[in-house]
């Protein structure tokens, strides 16, 4: 009852009316108005449950509940009420009493059951407070979202708010409990798909302002759509995980106002006194990411006590990361193996180099003779080997005759030692991966290490090898098998790559000499 406390008279009045209405409802044929149905969500899927509005109560018919949940309903002449049975257990309802007896225990209801012709109408709270006490799977009513949850279904609560932040539009989704999600842009819609059976959410009405036009529940089974307006340019999503819940923050960035298509003309053609030349459009900081799912085919890699194979875990995580990178960053993503194939280590680095990869992430799962060892580790190439190789590589520097006379320095890049020039960036990427993974999964006590790994040595781009956890640890093996954990790892690495790209975009790439062919 929404009544201001400053108006005690009104409170009294409203209370009297409510009391009168309740008494009237118990004694007279009620006037139940049809209301939007509830949605019943169970492992079998979704079904509607008809509902009515009775005064300020949302009520459902016992017969409908009985059909849905395999209950028996019979008139109880003794109490003038109804008896609801399930597998030998009983809930007794008495006409005119806002109470139910659940296997002999009394629980309160917000309003009494009401006889409407041949039906009994009960407040929806009856399901959670009374029926749940005799039912053998979980029953949960989410009144605000009009959901009835049966059994172990994943229905996270999602609170959505929208606010302007510095010229951008920020949409924040508080998700409890933490639920994995994917974000994809399809035309003028940004779709946020949660790994859930349904969402417990109420969609806020927002004013269309050009960047964001509307927020919708695109699919009640777990997809929220942001309808994008004509001023939308790009988006950036980040996840802030908390103990129980998580905040998904999506910033919608407006497109730059009326940018004409950049016209390239030779510098000499520009009049000396004319307007300043447009700033040259830099190539994107990240175009191609190569993911290397470790092992494969005959090379099974490590194995857990439960039989989980490294090659399967690495491929599953790589596929998730690929999907995330493509949808979030819009970059080209290549896998060194698409399926369960044997691929030599040198071919993996070569694929990355031949496709002008900007980043190589090799994904592995670890093993130890000590089953207690657990936690993820991130590796980049060890410096002393690289230092040694750098000396050798320096000897390969040559001067070649250049077209039009003279000579120019040409650096002969030996792919065996190609990683040397990128060690600094690889270390940065490893540090970012550590930070992001620390928020998502358990890290090993020695989280960032350097080692002479062959797949890294040949990569002519920043490269790290991520050991997602120890398969030889039984508990970690279980986690690594789960889709939720694999998704959490992929998301952490996606965040790390996003931060790496952003950091790169902000600084001139001085570390890469412009004369060196990539």
């Amino acid at each position, binding site marked *: 009852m929404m009544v201001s406390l400053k108006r005690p008279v009104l409170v009294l009045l409203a209370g009297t009316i409510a009391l009168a209405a309740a008494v009237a409802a118990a004694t007279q044929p009620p006037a139940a108005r049809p209301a939007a149905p509830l949605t019943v969500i169970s492992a079998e899927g979704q079904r509607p449950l008809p509902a009515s509005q009775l005064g300020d109560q949302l009520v459902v018919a016992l017969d409908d509940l009985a059909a849905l949940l395999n209950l028996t309903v019979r008139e109880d002449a003794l109490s003038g009420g109804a008896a609801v049975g399930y597998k030998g257990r009983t809930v007794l309802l008495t006409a005119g009493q806002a109470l139910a007896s659940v296997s002999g225990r009394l629980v309160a209801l917000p309003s009494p059951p009401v006889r409407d012709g041949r039906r009994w109408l009960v407040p929806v709270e009856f399901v959670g407070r009374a029926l749940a006490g005799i039912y053998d799977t979980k029953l949960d009513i989410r009144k605000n979202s009009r959901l009835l949850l049966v059994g172990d279904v994943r229905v996270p609560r999602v609170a959505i708010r929208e606010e302007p932040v510095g010229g951008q539009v920020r949409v924040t989704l508080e998700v409890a409990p933490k639920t994995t999600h994917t974000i994809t842009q399809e035309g003028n819609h940004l779709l946020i798909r949660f790994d859930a059976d349904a969402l417990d959410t109420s969609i806020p009405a927002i004013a269309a302002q050009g960047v964001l036009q509307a927020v919708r529940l695109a699919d009640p089974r777990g997809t929220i759509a942001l309808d994008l307006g004509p001023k939308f340019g790009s988006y950036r999503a980040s996840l802030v995980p908390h103990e129980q819940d998580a905040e998904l923050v999506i910033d919608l960035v407006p497109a730059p106002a009326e940018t004409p298509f950049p016209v390239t003309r030779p510098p000499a053609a520009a009049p000396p006194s004319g307007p300043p030349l447009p700033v040259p459009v830099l190539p994107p900081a990240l175009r191609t990411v190569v993911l290397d799912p470790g092992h494969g085919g005959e090379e099974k890699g490590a194995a857990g006590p439960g039989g989980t194979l490294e090659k399967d875990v690495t491929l599953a995580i790589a596929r998730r990361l690929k999907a995330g990178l493509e949808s979030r960053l819009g970059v080209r993503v290549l896998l060194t193996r698409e399926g369960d194939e044997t691929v030599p280590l040198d071919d993996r680095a070569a694929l990355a180099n031949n496709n002008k990869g900007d980043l190589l992430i090799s994904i592995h799962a670890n093993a130890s*003779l000590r089953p207690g060892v657990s936690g993820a580790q991130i590796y980049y190439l060890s410096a002393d080997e690289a230092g040694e190789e*750098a000396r050798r590589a320096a000897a390969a520097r040559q001067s070649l005759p250049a077209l039009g006379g003279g000579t120019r320095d040409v650096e002969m890049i030996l792919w065996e030692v190609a990683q040397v020039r990128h060690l600094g960036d690889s270390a940065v990427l490893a540090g970012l991966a550590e930070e992001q993974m620390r928020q998502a999964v358990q890290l090993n006590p020695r989280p960032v290490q350097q080692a002479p790994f062959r797949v890294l040595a040949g990569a002519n781009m920043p490269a790290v090898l991520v050991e997602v956890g120890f398969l030889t640890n039984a508990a970690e093996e279980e986690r690594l098998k789960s889709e939720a954990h694999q998704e959490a790892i992929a998301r952490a690495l996606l965040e790390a790559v996003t931060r790496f790209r952003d950091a790169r975009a902000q600084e001139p790439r001085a570390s890469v000499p412009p004369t060196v062919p990539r």
Partner: protein
Amino acid sequence: MILWFVLAGIAVGAAAAATLVLSRWLATGETPAALDAPATAAEPRIKVRLFYVSADGLRLVPAEREVPFAEGTLEQARRIVEAQLEPAPAPLLSAIPPGTTLRSVFLTQSSEAFVDLSREVAAGHPGGALNEILTVYAIVDALTTNLPALTGVQIRVDGHEVDTLAGHVDLRRPLSKSTAWVEDPGAAPSTVPPTAPAAGPGTPEAPASVPIR
């Protein structure tokens, strides 16, 4: 009181010098004048540091073992690797797959050791990058720690150069000693410091924000 400190200092210095001299002798193959040989005196033995999987599983831990003394670096290297391939003393664990045997050792002119192991070292390897790192560096560090004249160790399998043992650690070239994988490396015997990484023309500086462990 001060006198005692001075004397203690001299004693420590002398011990360090003796260790250094002993290791030089071993490296050059000269026979040391005195060895702590067992009572039988039939077979002179020397103390070496071998490396096993630490209790927390994250590193190698050095352990002192006696191995037969041998004339010359090559023969001594063979004795050390053979001892390293033996099962670990309880409760330590050997990082090297059981059944692995030494086929041969040879030295290059630049004092790199090539260690040829039987196929079990790869075929019987349980996999996992950390396992593989510990397998490789148990052998590399056993040789380079006890024979400081050695500049690097390259592992071969069954008479051939191999890419890796289990898909991670690059074995195409000799690896130098690494203390990064050894528990309490400060306790290791005094040796020639490992080659410092040279700042080659193409070597970018490691950023200060990322700890290099």
